[in-house]
Each structure stands twice: as structure tokens, then as C-alpha cells.
């Protein structure tokens, strides 16, 4: 029977290996989770990821509307398409979660991260660090005779690349905020 032309149902995973990736590839998705800002809501979201064995690559959270007690949690995660769908459905079950947006599939979006880098060194290395910072449009927000703190905003890839370059030039410490993301366009 296939008068309906719907594809047949059985999946190819084994019962105890539900998240096996047979056939389907892992994908990286950025989710924007709009939540009622009540105590413990972040713990609920994080608990869901750890309790059910999902990945968190990056997580940011902040209140976005004080009046309506609304916060926005941005999570970058990886998984097979089935797992990603399950993550969204599970997030939707959390009572204070108002909305879940998958920015990766809901059309084009912008993603940015901010990072601070402390780079210490003298001589050629110091000059080279400053030159590269200039190319990356990083700002020096603190400087001493033997160190800089650079501030850089960009995609996660750009920040990774800058960190790689700074490492041999005396990278001491870095701090990054995690991804903030919005869809492009007017709505």
C-alpha cells in the first residue's frame, strides 16, 4: 500500500543507540530560546541538555525585556536532524519557555561573539600581535609596555582564527561571551 506516496516509516537505529548517526550527518544549529525570566529557568534548559545527552557548544543568556520578564537564551548545538528536532520539541515542553527559534533553518541570520585576549610579549612579537589585531579590526582596550588586551567581535570562526594566531605571539588568557544571534531582515 502506498497510494499516498508517503515514505515508509521504519528507522534504522537500534533501540539503545537512538542517537546513532547512521546515514545522517551531524549538523550545527543555533537556537534562540525565548523564556519567561523566572528563577531556575536556565537550570531547566541546561538540565535538559545534560539529562538527555545533548551537546552544548555555546550558550548565552540575558534578559531582553524587563517589563515582560523575558530572557533570550542562545544555544549552539550539534546533532543529527532527528536529534535537533527532538531538542526543539523537548525545549518546547519546558513550561516557562515561550518560543524556540531554530535560526539555522528559519532563514538567514547573523551570529556574533565577543572575545577578550590578553597577549604579553616584547619586541617583534609585540609588533606582530598589534599588526594582526589591526587586520582583524580588534581594539586594544588595555595596554602596558609588555601586554595588550584586545577586544574582538565576530563569528566564532573568526575568533578561533584570531586565537590561533595569537597563541605563538604570547596569548596568556582569553574570555569569550558565547554566540548571540538574530535572524536577518525586518521580522
Amino acid at each position, binding site marked *: 500500500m502506498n497510494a499516498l506516496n508517503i515514505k*515508509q*516509516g521504519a528507522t534504522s537505529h*537500534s*533501540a539503545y543507540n537512538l542517537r546513532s548517526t547512521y546515514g545522517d550527518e551531524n549538523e550545527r544549529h543555533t537556537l534562540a530560546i525565548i523564556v519567561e525570566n523566572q528563577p531556575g529557568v536556565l537550570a531547566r534548559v541546561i538540565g535538559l541538555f545534560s539529562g538527555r545527552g545533548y551537546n552544548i557548544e555555546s550558550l548565552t543568556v540575558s534578559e531582553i525585556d524587563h517589563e515582560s520578564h523575558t530572557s533570550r537564551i542562545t544555544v549552539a548545538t550539534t546533532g543529527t536532524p532527528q536529534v535537533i528536532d527532538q531538542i526543539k520539541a523537548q525545549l518546547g515542553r519546558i*513550561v516557562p519557555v*515561550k518560543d524556540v527559534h531554530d535560526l539555522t533553518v528559519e532563514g538567514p541570520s547573523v551570529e556574533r561573539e565577543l572575545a577578550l585576549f590578553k597577549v604579553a610579549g616584547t619586541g617583534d612579537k609585540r609588533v606582530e600581535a598589534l599588526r594582526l589585531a589591526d587586520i582583524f579590526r580588534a581594539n586594544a582596550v588595555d595596554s602596558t609596555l609588555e601586554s595588550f588586551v584586545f577586544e574582538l567581535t565576530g563569528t566564532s570562526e573568526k575568533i578561533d582564527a584570531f586565537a590561533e594566531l595569537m597563541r605563538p605571539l604570547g596569548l596568556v588568557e582569553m574570555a569569550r561571551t558565547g554566540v548571540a544571534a538574530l535572524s536577518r531582515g525586518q521580522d
Partner: protein
Amino acid sequence: MVVQALKDQGVDTVFGYPGGAVLPIYDEIFQQNGIRHFLVRHEQGAVHAAEGYARSTGKPGVVLVTSGPGATNAVTGLTDALLDSIPLVVLTGQVPTFMIGSDAFQEADTVGITRPCTKHNWLVKDTDALSGTLHEAFHVATTGRPGPVLIDIPKDVQFAEGEYTGPKAIKSHYTPKVKGDLDQITALVEAMETAEKPIFYTGGGVINSGPAASQLLRELVDSTGFPITSTLMGLGSYPASGDKWIGMLGMHGLYEANLAMHGCDLMINIGARFDDRITGKLDEFSPNSVKAHVDIDPSSINKVIHVDIPIVGDVAHVLEDILKVWKSRGRKTASAEVKSWWKQIEDWRAIRCLDYKNSEKTIKPQYALQRLQELTKTHDRYITTEVGQHQMWAAQYLGFEDPNRWMTSGGLGTMGYGFPASIGVQVAHPDALVINVAGEASWLMNMQEMGTAMQYHLPVKQFILNNERLGMVRQWQELLHGERYSSSWSEALPDFVKLAEAFGAKGIICSDPADLDDAIMEMITYDGPVLFDCLVEKHENCFPMIPSGKAHNEMLLGEAETQGVIDAKGSVLV
């Protein structure tokens, strides 16, 4: 204020256990009459009793316990209710707000501990928010996929005066979708019209949806003539005596039901969640069927099994629409093909998979349940169970004609559930015959509740199939671990008759099949709690059984086939 909110929610029954952090609420309860409080003997018992109450009435169960150990004792019950989608509202006391975080006496991070085992929970720090939170809690527990919620109330918040808001004023953004998508419903009806080997696979969601859902299901099944099977949790939504009923499916389900699931071309899942006890080996699960799935929780859909026709909505609403669309399109089915499908099912049924070798000397557990069924089926009867072989035999050999009459711990499989649950059921239905089918090991886990049954004159019948073994564990050790029965003997058992008598209840012991009927009648007619020690065959195995990691069509039917059936890969599964 708490009591007022409960009354406004229509609550008249609370199960609980007092302690320092909830004394102000107990004081309120003392000074009124509208709400009856049942004092259990352990907080786990309170939660299971509330589950029994809820499952047998369709109303939320309410529990009141103290902080710290009171709350932690409730955790197993909460987890049980979460997995089986039972609506509960649990109130816990907490140390006063100004002491939270100081390791105060009987302080525990109750919302932290119970976050993963509740549908939602709240710590109320402000008395003005208390009544609103209580009303929202009832809304969340009973709306959408039901589940347990918990409200943690610090003692100073209980004492303080605050603004009371009635239930009407509550606005919650939590409003799950109940109407199914009409295009999907039409797609399902189209599939039903042409299906040659259709099957309804129904579950606990039909019970959750309410009595109307069971009525609509009966109408749909009877008018399409399709066979219907159900999970453990859905028993009773379609009557066991109905002629389209082909029995429970799953690991210990009937041969005909499992083979029909394996061989069908259209599977219509209504309120079931493709649990691993059902699917067995996933890549061989019903390989040639188009699958439709009706569920109110979007996360249940495509979680385990990919479905072709997903319908998110409440069972009763969706069934109503399915019936409407199906009728308006002329009530079509491929009746000739469906008839030969039935022929095939009858052939499977002819195997008589529930047959067992009876004995004149010892009581076979299956026989005990067959007799229990015969002697009680005309009563206004409710059955609860503990967890183990007896639970599966009860599901196989007792017949359920209506929803809300079968209370069992399915998802968590909590030994110790059945006795307190039977107490909750009896509280809700004082004149009914309430029987807990138990194993001796499970029963001992919450035996202290005999005190509760006595105190409130609740004539619950405890029907223990005593095999002096942790039978289900022993069965697995026989099949998987070379008959090495590591710690699966129930040793040093009490004399159950004397134990009953020590509580002031009635004890009955029976070991001869010839005496069984009289003994059961004595149990039924006795006006008060009865502890029935039914000594049964010790090494009986529960069949049919689909071994872990096997497909539906690789089912074991009897003793002969059990050697070396579970391979190394299967044995890591539970």
C-alpha cells in the same frame, strides 16, 4: 490561603504527612471540613496513593509533605508520575526564606532535586504570589500531557498574610494545542480507506484524554472493523470483551498483537509513545507500514520511530475529527482485504499463546488470576499492581472493560507502587472492590501503608502471588545469566497472615488449587483490608516474551525455546 486555593480547585482529598515546615498548613486543615486529609505512613505512599486517586478519577491527586526528608521521600513517586503522565500537585514545606541556603534544619534544595522529575515546579517566596502559583500549578498539571508539579512553600510564606487571587484571574501562556491538523487527519483517513492490514495501537494517552476519548475510540474501531491492540498503560480504553480486541502488545504482549504490529501496512498510534517495551529492535520494527501518530506532546512524535503522518493534538479532539472526516467521505475501508487480514490474525490467535500447563497440586499464578477474573468480573472493580511477573500476568489474564480501572507503574516500574495506589483508589471509590495484584517482594516495599488502610477503614484487597522469588529478576537471570540466581530469592519472608493480624487486618493463606475459589470469595466478601498470601509455583516464567534486542516476530512462547536466546548485544539492554 493554601486550603482556600485547594478548595477553589475542587479538591476534597489530600494525602500527606506532617512535619515542622508544613505545620501552618496542617493547622489550616485542622480548622475546616471541606478537605479530607489522609495520613499515610511514608511520603512515597502519599504520592502513589495520589496517583491511584488521579488515575481512577481523572482528577489531579494532591499531596502535602514537609521539607527535607518529606520532600526527598516523595521523589520516587514524582518520577513515577512523570513517566506515566499522571497529574499531581505536590506541596512541600520549606525552611523560612531567610534561612534558605544556610543548611538549616531539614533544608533540602527541593526545587533543585525535583526539577528533572516534575513537569514544572515553583519555590514561592512571596505570599502574594502563593494563590496564583497554586492555581497555575493545577493548570499545568492537568493541561496538555498531564504530569506532576511541585510547589515548595517556605514556612514564613505560609504564616504571612497576603493577597488572595481566585482561579479565574490566572492567565497562563501554557496552552498546548488540542485540535489536530486537518490536512494530516485527512491524510490518515485516506490511508485508512485503502489500508489492507491496518491496526490501531493505543496507549495511556487515550486514558489521559478522558472518558469521551474511550467512547470515540470504540466508535471508530467498531465502525471501521480494524483490529486494536493497546499498551500496558492503555488497557480498558477499548473493552477486552470487544470483538476487535487482539490483546496487549509488547515484550510480554500477545503473539497475535505483536505479529499484527509487525505485519501491518497501516499503524495508527493513538496516545502511545513507542516505548522500548513495545518496539523491541528498532530497525526491524513494523518494517512495511505507514505510521500515523496522534499525541499531544510534540516531543513524543519522531522521538524513537519516524512516523509518516504526525498529528499533534488531544486524543478525543482528534478522534472526533477523524470520525467526522471518515464519515463525510463515505465510511470507506478496503473491507475484503481487511477481512483476510483478520483471517491471518485468527491464525495467529489459534496458537493460544497464553496457554500454560496447569497443575492440580500447586497454584499456577496464571490460574490464580484466571480465577480472580472469573470471580470478580461482575463487580465494580479496580485493579492496581506492583511490578514484576505478577504485573504482566495481571495484564494478560484480567480483562478490562472500561478506562480508569487499571492502575500500574509502567514507565518507571516502581515496586511498592500498588499497595498505596490501591489505597488512593479506594478513597476515591469507597464502595468499589479494589484489588492490588502483588508480588511478595514488591508488597513489602510499602507494607507500612496497612496502617493507613486500617485507620480509614479502606477495605483494599492485597492479592499476593507469593513465589518467594524476585520473580521477574529470577526469570531474567534464568534467560541471561546461566541460571545464576544472584540475590533473587525472597528470603526470611514474614508470616503474612500474622502480619495482617498484627495490623488488625484479615490474613488468608492458600496453597491448594482446590481451595482457591473459596479463599478468593472469602477475600471479596470480607468487609475490611485483606492480605491474601497465595502461594504459587516458584519458578514459573512469564510468556510470551520478546527477548531484549529482538524483533516482534522473534517472540518466545514457552519454556522449550528459552536456551541461549539473548545474545551478548541483547544482554546489555534492560
